[in-house]
Every structure is written in C-alpha cells, then in structure tokens.
C-alpha cells in the first residue's frame, strides 16, 4: 500500500517531467519573517510560475499577507520586522537588486484602495513613472491610456482625467490603483486581498482584469475568499499558522487535496 507521501512524490515527478521547461519568476527558500522576535511565517519554500495566477489562501493570521509583503520589501517599513532566508526573482537574490528596483519589478495592490488624494486621476497613474525618472509628455499619455485600458477603467474616466482621484467610487479607485501599478511596467504583481473592501460588481470587474493581466504578468493574490481563489487562479497555496501546508494546481487543492488540513479548510469544516 502506498502512503500519501509517496503518491505526492510520484505526482511531483510526473509534473516536473511534463513541465520541464517551466519558468519560475519567484522562488523562496526557508523564508521566515518575524516581528519583534515573534515568527509570523516560518520556512516557506515556494516556486511561483511565470505568467500564472497563484492564490494564497488560509485563515486570518496565517501569514499570507506577511508572505506577500516580504516579496517586495514592504517589511522594511515595519519596525522590528526581520526577514530571513532567500527570495529569488528571476534566479537572482532579491538583496542583490536595488530596493526600489525590486519594488518596481514587483508591483503591489493593497486591500483598501489608496490613490494619492492630492493628485488627479492622470497624475495618480503616472506618479510612479515621474518620480522614478522623467518621461516625455506624449509617451506618458500613451502609458496612461494603456494602463487604464488594461485595468478596465479607461472608458469610465477618459473624459475626466484631471478630476481628483478621490471623486471615484471605491471599485474605480481600486482599478486606478491597478492602473497605477501597471504604469511602472512590473513583471510580478502582488494583490493583497484586493476585493475585500469592494462590492460584488466591482469585485467581478477586478477578477476580469486579473484574467487579462495573466498573459503579461505573474500574479500572486492573497484572498480569504475561497471561491475567488478557485475562480481566478491556476495555482493555490494554503497557509496555516505561518506554514505552507500545501501548494498545487488550484483544481487539485479544491478537489483532491493531499493534506487533511487543506481539506478541512476548503470544505469549510474549519476557518
């Protein structure tokens, strides 16, 4: 009789064989983050495939946001935070890059829409470009249109680009934040529960956007909504108590999870 472990090993072998040429954009090894000595995530080893949507699920406090924020140095702001292990982006250690370069290549969209309140829509989109290095006006116009188009907001705001960003609805603000992130042309975009503060219609619009973005970008999304993970992602990682419990194709996680803990969570017996 085969043990569960052997089955997974076998499955893993099959998977690597069939996807031998797979490209990984983000890889972590032994990633551990602690706040003032208390560990929030411990020994995370994960390889995220290029041009896929990977969702991270788990009960609150399981460390999913902590993991996400370690990928673009967001913990640098938090006093007492310590990040250990290795994070590789395109096979290069994250600390070999300049910090701002990492953040430019790894964009982030936050839980609550946070457009810059003193700027209009146009300036919000170009803020990242202008403040990194200047570009020509006509080039900027193009970028603004493209980014807003991709974020699914262009049609709604094209006639009022000079209006304050605060005049938009919550869902529009969040799409503006996506456009703002796209404008700096990242390779990876991290979404930290991007729809948890939004209504269902705005949520579905953003999910649609995610689907389009997959072709160009690698996407990692943290969500507490399992249906959303099932809808939008190719791969799913289940975190529990700061540990990565299981990481596999989304279909596998939701239909035949390997771990009992995962099964309990996805079937709603827990959390």
């Amino acid at each position: 009789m085969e043990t569960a472990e052997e089955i997974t090993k076998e499955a893993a072998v099959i998977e690597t064989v069939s996807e031998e040429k797979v490209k990984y954009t983000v890889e972590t090894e032994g990633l551990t983050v602690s706040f003032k000595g208390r560990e929030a995530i411990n020994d995370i080893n994960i390889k995220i495939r290029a041009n896929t949507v990977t969702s991270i699920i788990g009960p609150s406090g399981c460390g999913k946001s902590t993991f996400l924020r370690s990928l673009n140095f967001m913990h640098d702001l938090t006093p007492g935070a310590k990040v250990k292990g290795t994070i590789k982006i395109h096979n290069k250690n994250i600390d070999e890059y300049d910090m701002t370069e990492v953040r430019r290549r790894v964009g982030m969209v936050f839980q609550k829409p946070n457009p810059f309140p003193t700027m209009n829509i146009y300036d919000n989109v170009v803020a990242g470009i202008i403040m990194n290095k200047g570009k020509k006006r006509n080039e900027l116009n193009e970028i603004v249109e493209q980014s807003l188009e991709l974020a699914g907001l262009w049609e709604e705001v094209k006639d009022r680009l000079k209006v304050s960003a605060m005049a938009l609805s919550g869902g529009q603000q969040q799409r503006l934040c996506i456009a703002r992130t796209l404008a700096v042309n990242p390779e990876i975009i991290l979404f930290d529960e991007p729809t948890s503060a939004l209504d269902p219609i705005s949520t579905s619009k953003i999910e649609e956007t995610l689907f389009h973005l997959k072709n160009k970008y690698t996407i990692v999304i943290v969500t507490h909504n399992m249906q959303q993970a099932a809808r939008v992602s190719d791969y799913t990682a289940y975190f529990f108590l700061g540990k990565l419990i299981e990481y596999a194709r989304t279909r596998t996680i939701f239909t035949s999870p390997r771990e009992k803990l995962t099964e309990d969570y996805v079937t709603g017996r827990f959390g």
Partner: protein
Amino acid sequence: MNKEITVGIKEIKARKKLSDLFFENLTLVFALMIIVLVVFIIYEMFMDSKLSREIFGFGFIFSQDWNPVKDKFGALTFVYGTLISSIIALAISLPVSIGVAVYLSELAANVFKTAISFLIEILAAIPSIVYGFWGIFVLAPFMRTTVQPFLQSTLGFLPIFQGNAVGFGLLTAGIILAIMVTPIITAITRDVLKAIPTSQREAAYALGATKWEAIKMALLNAKGGILGATVLGLGRAVGETMAVTMVIGNKAQIKASLFEPSYSMASVIANEFAEASGGLHISSLIEVGLILFAVTFIINSFARLLIYSFTRKTEAK
C-alpha cells in the same frame, strides 16, 4: 520547532539608496539641531553667569540686595515676585478654567462650543505686549479705583490687602497672568475631559447621580491630566515677561501686601539687560535667567510627565 532550520539562514536586508540615506540623515541633522540648541542655551547661560556665581555663590538666591551702583546682587526679591504673582494667577485661573472646560466639554451647545473654543484660541495667541498695554491703561486704573478699595474695605484686616492702592503691583500682575494662562489650562483640561469615556458618565447617571455628580466623577478621573494642565499654566506664568513687566510696578522689594509694587525674574532682565553697566550686572542678570530657566524646566517637565502618564492611562483603558 523549526529552529534548527532557520538559525543558520541569513537575514535579507534591503539595500538602501544613497539618496535615501542622505535624506534620512539630513532630517536627523535638523532634529539633532534642536537638541544642540537646548544644550547650547543651557551651556551659555551657565558660562555667562560664571562671574556672578563665583562672587555670590548660593547666597545669590537668598539675598535681597539688588544694587547695580554698589555691584551687590541677589535674586530673592525677583524669585518672590515671580512665584507670588504666578500663584495668584493660578488661584484665580484654575477654578475659572475648570469651569470653562466643563462648560465646553459637557454643557455647551455645538454653536457655542465652536465659537468659545475659537475665542479662547485667539486669547492664547494675543501677544503679551497687548495684554500688558491693556493692563497699564485699563486694568491698573480699575484696580486702583475699584478692586483694591473694595478689598481694603471688606478684607482689609488681612495684611495682604493693606497699604496704598496704587494699581500697579503683585495683585494686578497676578490677575493679568490669570487672564493669560486661562486659555492654556482650559484647552488641556477640555481635551482631558473629552478623553474620559462617556460610558463612565452614563454609569454615574444610571446609579441616580445628578448632572454635577456625574461631572464631578469625570473631573476626579481626570485629575492627573488637570494637574498637568495647571502645572503647564504655572510654567507659562513664571516665564511671562512683557505683561508682567508693564503692571507689576518694577520695584525690588518684598512686602506682605499684594498691592505693593514688586519685580519678577523675567521683568528685571527685560528692563535692565540692554542698559546693564559692567560685567557683574550682566552676569547677575544672566544668573537670574538661569534660575528662571531651571524653575520653568522643572515645572514643565513635571507637567509633561503628568500629561503623558494621564494620556497613557486613558489610552490603555
């Protein structure tokens, strides 16, 4: 449980940009400038009063002599004038301030609340020279013709209310200081009262308390913060210069009567510093300044300590 795995793993440190380091250190330099400034103020006061400290020693504080002609200097009369005028100010200002603060936080309708808060803000921002000027031409004559004769005829048996009603003196200085510190004490007391949760007042009402009893409970709970506000007001009164100089009478003497002219530490510096002859006179004035600094420093530190610990206490609740 996974210690053995994580121990050997190195920390990922972000590489900071040079421009970021530069900016951070630039702001640090400006912040340090404040510290350097304060240290330098203390150092300078200390060094420049050296002559006086060496000649008069500790006796300086206890001597009533102040005679630039004979080069005899002592600060006691000024310390006395400063302390007594400030105490008078607090005695008048404290009940009034608490009353206004209670009115603003518990009783007033919104329109009045905004209007009166605004008026009190302005009161706090009016230059002291204007208070002093008003003191010379309105308050002092009023004291001479009305308040002081009234006090003499009713409470004249007390030594503090005897003597000539000249208008300029300790009592007038105390009253003008009271007007000036009231906005400070009021503003902090109001904030402190606001920090007391409404639920406490509701609890008092639920037990059948009258309105005043509920307010009294809030006041008792806020007493640490109110004390802090009072001490802060005291610090302001002690350091106040122009208004006091213009109404205190500027006479270096210690008399029992509050009607008598007196002199404060800040006033003597304001009046004599620019025209001081000789090094010892200047040095003595700076030593008076040093005493004034020490007094205000102790008072203010104490006040901040009280207010900090009060806010921490209410935040913890």
